[in-house]
């Protein structure tokens, strides 16, 4: 083995240009694989992130509202390590009216300390500021035009169920989602609690997770912690079935692409190494005449494949990551943020390199077998 390895090393070293070309060929295959893989992972992640990044990932809804909720909220936040934020909300519907205009709205009471960690309202405020005290509100930016109002104005909430309430506008937010910009009115929790007038109560417990993929396990942990299997509790993946299936079909197409790339890498290595066996048939004959075992002769080529694979894979990872980096740096949207954010999935990179290494070693198998069948006498006789 040691002998075969040192002969393989020497063969590669003494045909440097040839070796470099093969390494580059493997590297290009690997880099394409890494590039496509990273891009598709990044795309999938950004799709998930833009869809659920700023919303509740698990929501518990209390149809008849929940009073004395503090212990429940605490129990939920301690139910699983995967829960990063828990916030309680209370939402009613109704309309906003000024002198001439009326718009139907969703009136949402938040505990901003925790809610900001999910909804990032503090970043989304484009005018004025977040409401801080009772009866202060911030409105979706579209409502500003629709109701022809400004920061500092007052406006009247009314509903057939809860009557009327005068509110003070402290700011406008832009959620980048038209439906929300046209309908959400946000306010401290107590405003909504007071309008309902039935004391401290909430309608929903919302939360975000560290690992969004583990949402169903986390849901089970919450159900267990609250010991209540009548809970109305929904996770993001249950709500976004379409998104998930589109991401998973995208992932399977990415696997298909990678399989194709791997096959072409293997084929090129096989053909290149087969030529190497031909070129080295003279050397092999000499070695065999001197008594090298067929097994060791075969190992020379397996090691050649292995060494080419190692350097090809390393270079390929560097190229692939560089390409991905360049792409995410130069392909930016109008706001300067990358169209597809860079996701350095180390596991995936290691996997790609590992596959290339295995592939090139296996690709050396057929040349290796060929070498052990080589006829010594043909070469010795003919010189």
């Amino acid at each position, binding site marked *: 083995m040691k002998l075969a390895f040192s002969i393989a090393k020497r063969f590669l070293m*003494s045909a440097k240009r040839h070796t470099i070309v093969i390494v580059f060929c493997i590297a290009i295959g690997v880099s394409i694989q890494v590039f496509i893989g990273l891009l598709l992972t990044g795309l999938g992640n950004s799709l998930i992130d833009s869809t659920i990044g700023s919303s509740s990932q698990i929501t518990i809804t209390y149809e008849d509202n929940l009073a004395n909720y503090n212990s429940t909220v605490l129990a939920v936040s301690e139910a699983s390590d995967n829960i990063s934020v828990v916030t309680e909300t209370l939402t009613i519907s109704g309309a906003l009216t000024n002198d001439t205009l009326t718009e139907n709205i969703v009136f949402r009471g938040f505990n901003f300390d925790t809610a900001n960690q999910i909804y990032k309202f503090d970043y989304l405020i484009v005018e004025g500021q977040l409401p801080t005290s009772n009866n202060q509100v911030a409105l979706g930016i579209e409502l500003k035009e629709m109701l022809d109002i400004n920061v500092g104005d007052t406006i009247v909430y009314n509903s057939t169920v809860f009557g009327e309430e005068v509110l003070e506008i402290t700011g406008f937010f832009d959620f980048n989602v038209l439906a929300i910009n046209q309908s959400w009115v946000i306010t401290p929790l107590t405003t909504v609690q007071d309008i309902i007038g039935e004391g401290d109560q909430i309608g929903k417990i919302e939360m975000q997770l560290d690992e969004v993929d583990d949402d169903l396990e986390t849901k089970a942990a919450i159900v267990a912690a609250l010991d209540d299997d009548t809970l109305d509790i929904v996770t993001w993946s249950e709500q976004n079935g379409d998104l998930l299936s589109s991401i998973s079909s995208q992932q399977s197409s990415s696997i298909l692409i990678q399989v194709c790339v791997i096959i072409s890498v293997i084929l090129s290595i096989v053909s290149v190494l087969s030529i190497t066996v031909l070129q080295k048939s003279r050397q092999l*004959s000499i*070695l065999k005449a001197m008594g*090298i075992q067929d097994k060791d002769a075969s190992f020379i080529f397996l090691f050649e494949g292995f060494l080419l694979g190692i350097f090809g894979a390393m270079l390929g990872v560097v190229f692939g990551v560089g390409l991905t980096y360049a792409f995410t740096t130069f392909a930016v949207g109008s706001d300067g943020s990358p169209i597809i954010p860079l996701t350095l999935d180390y596991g995936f990179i290691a996997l790609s390199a590992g596959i290339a290494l295995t592939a090139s070693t296996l690709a050396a198998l057929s040349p290796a077998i060929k070498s052990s069948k080589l006829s010594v006498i043909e070469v010795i006789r003919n010189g």
Partner: protein
Amino acid sequence: MADILTLKNITKTYGENTKNPTQVLFGIDLNFEESSFNSIIGQSGSGKSTLLNIIGSLDRPSGGEIFLSGKDLSVFTNKELADIRNQYLGFIFQFHYLLPEFSALENVLMPYKISKKELTKEIEDRAYELLELVDLKGFENKLATNLSGGQQQRVAIARSLINNPKIVLADEPTGNLDSDTTEKVYNLLREINKKFKTTFIIITHDRHIAEKTDRVIEITDGRISLDIKK
């Protein structure tokens, strides 16, 4: 002295299963004594190399038997034959085959490395010594491709001796050498033959050289036409 090598009725036909088979060897019977110094002469195309390659287990005879130290070669597996080539035989080919990727010293050490024994100071010293014997002191680290034909041939001679083989099979080992060097190399082989009791079978077309060996075998058209022992 006991026979180290016995050939019984060896025949060789090239292209046996083709339309025009050519028979090259016709029933060769030969015995070689241990530590003898033999030469084979004959015209070009008479079958000398064919015979030597068969003796060296690089080629298989079409008929007949070969006994090495009394053991029938045909019963050995390929793996065992490889070991025999490595341990018992030393080859010097007609077309002096060195590995071009390796230096003179590395080429000389190659049969030893193939035997998978640990590389020792002793064996390295021996390799240097052998290169010095063939007058290549100072050329140890030169790549084989950068040596002249005659230098390569001398490296091949040193290489054939590194594992202390029982038999050295040499096919025109001095083909490219001038008469002075040829003389020197033969004296060297003779010395090794005396010192280590190594058996030599040397193909040569140089009658002058052949006359200096213990036994001259002449092959004519695949048959032994002359066999003189001194």
